[in-house]
């Protein structure tokens, strides 16, 4: 046997996920979306065979090459079976024939990249509800298991299974083809893809699932896919770069954001040593790239805000810039979180009392984050009110991890 079984236990799931998504993307492109299930079956079958064979005979010299060879063989068998069905059985059923090209499956790096890019556009087609787009992306483009997806969305296996099946059915009946949209259409279509990828990133970043490793993987996957768009000439638009910058900046604080118990650590209490400098630099690179041209998308604005947050030192310039960016962002696109974050920035410039006055106009009294903000603003101004707001937040909060974070704040006030 090559390697200890402990190494295999770590290597296999990671290998499987990495290679599964490459193989599926190439097969999906080859078979087309109508046969997406076949592409998945062939891929799954390949890994099943791998588990069985490697379990008995040990890891091959080159596991990836082994997987690709087996995938190609199984695919060829599958095609032959379908051709036989076509010739012998279809005429009897009197249904339309589809031709299955006998060409070999191309698992080169270039084709893998191209297939993933094209499949991304297909899976993020606007006819699908957003949650289906994200679920399909997670399953097919990222190779996550159904249980993992269910865990991240805090739902059950059955719900996700249904979502995936219905999504595939919709794509099938709408006859969606896998391929890059025409150049004129790319700008429109890419917005849908970016929304999906941003949602995916946020799932990993804000998810209340306890599995930290999984959540980080979601973020990294979202970044990887956005990176594919940023690398390809046809899809490398300024707001793609802006979104990538935004993701890098947020991800740079991933390790500093939560305690081992999963409680959120507030920005001004984070340990800077845990901020990832490499990701911050990469963020700067993409933000610069995004600044060419006149476009100012919401991603540009959010990336700008995130940029300022990578500078720990408080200064008037920092918070004035952040406030102006939130002003523009909210005028473009309202969100309760944006409104609350703007109020926090306001408190840094005009003081807590002015911020309290503005906060109370927001109309967000049913939102636990509103009460968390007021808990912070009233601290040392009126601790009774601060405690009252934090208790309200505790009552309104949805998850244990959030409640624990609020309890932490309450004990500080006691």
């Amino acid at each position, binding site marked *: 046997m090559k390697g200890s079984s402990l190494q295999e236990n770590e290597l296999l799931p990671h290998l499987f996920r990495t290679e599964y998504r490459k193989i599926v993307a190439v097969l999906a492109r080859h078979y087309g979306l109508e046969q997406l299930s076949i592409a998945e079956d062939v891929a799954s079958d390949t890994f099943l065979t791998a588990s069985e064979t490697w379990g008995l005979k040990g890891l091959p010299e080159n596991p990836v090459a082994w997987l690709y060879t087996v995938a190609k063989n199984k695919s060829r068998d599958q095609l032959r079976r379908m051709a036989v069905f076509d010739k012998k059985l279809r005429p009897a059923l009197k249904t339309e024939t589809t031709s299955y090209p006998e060409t070999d499956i191309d698992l080169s790096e270039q084709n893998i990249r191209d297939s993933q890019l094209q499949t991304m556009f297909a899976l993020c087609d606007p006819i699908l509800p957003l949650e289906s787009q994200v679920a399909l992306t997670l399953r097919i483009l990222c190779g996550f298991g159904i249980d993992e997806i269910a865990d991240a969305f805090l739902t059950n296996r059955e719900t996700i299974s249904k979502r995936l099946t219905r999504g595939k059915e919709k794509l099938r009946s709408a006859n969606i083809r896998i391929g890059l949209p025409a150049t004129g259409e790319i700008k429109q279509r890419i917005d849908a893809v970016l929304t999906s990828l941003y949602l995916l990133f946020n799932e990993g970043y804000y998810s209340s699932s306890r599995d930290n490793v999984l959540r980080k993987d979601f973020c990294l996957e979202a970044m990887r896919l956005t990176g594919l768009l940023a690398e390809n000439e046809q899809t490398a638009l300024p707001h793609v770069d802006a979104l990538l910058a935004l993701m890098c900046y947020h991800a740079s604080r991933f390790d500093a954001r939560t305690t081992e118990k999963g409680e959120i650590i507030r920005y001004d209490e984070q340990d800077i040593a845990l901020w990832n400098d490499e990701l911050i630099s990469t963020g700067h690179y993409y933000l610069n790239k995004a600044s060419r041209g006149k476009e100012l998308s919401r991603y540009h604005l959010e990336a700008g805000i995130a940029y300022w947050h990578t500078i720990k030192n408080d200064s008037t310039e920092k918070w004035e810039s952040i406030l*102006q960016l*939130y*002003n523009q962002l*909210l*005028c473009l696109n*309202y969100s309760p979180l944006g409104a609350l974050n703007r*109020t926090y920035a306001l408190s840094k410039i005009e003081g807590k009392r002015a911020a309290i006055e*503005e906060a109370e106009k*927001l109309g967000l009294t049913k939102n636990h984050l509103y009460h968390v903000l007021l808990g912070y603003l009233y601290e040392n101004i009126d601790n009774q009110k601060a405690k009252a707001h934090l208790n309200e937040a505790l009552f309104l909060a949805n998850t244990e991890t959030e409640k624990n974070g609020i309890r932490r704040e309450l004990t500080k006030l006691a």
Partner: protein
Amino acid sequence: MNEFLLIFRRDYKSAETQPSPEQLQKMMKEWQNWMGNIAAQNKLVNSGNRLSDEGKVVKPGSLVTDGPYVEIKEAIGGYVIIRAESLEEAAEISKSCPILKVGGNVEIRTIIPMEM
């Protein structure tokens, strides 16, 4: 909730009332803050537009003159659409509009909703 059109007017002609470059800079920040405040309350329906100095006026008889409406000293500088519970609330929101600081004013009109 209704939607309201806010029309901003001020005197762009009389020399005494024109803001200095520094004042204009400061005003830009104040406008952004004022709009941001409204947007944060989820009451901004349309961030509107600023209008350029030049224009034309067309009257009956195909009479075309250089505008904006020349007979009036004040000109419309821009507009914004907000939502609010009432005209009174819309007026309250308008009280902190930066144009008031440079001698301008805000006209508020209720938008009649389209009937389907």
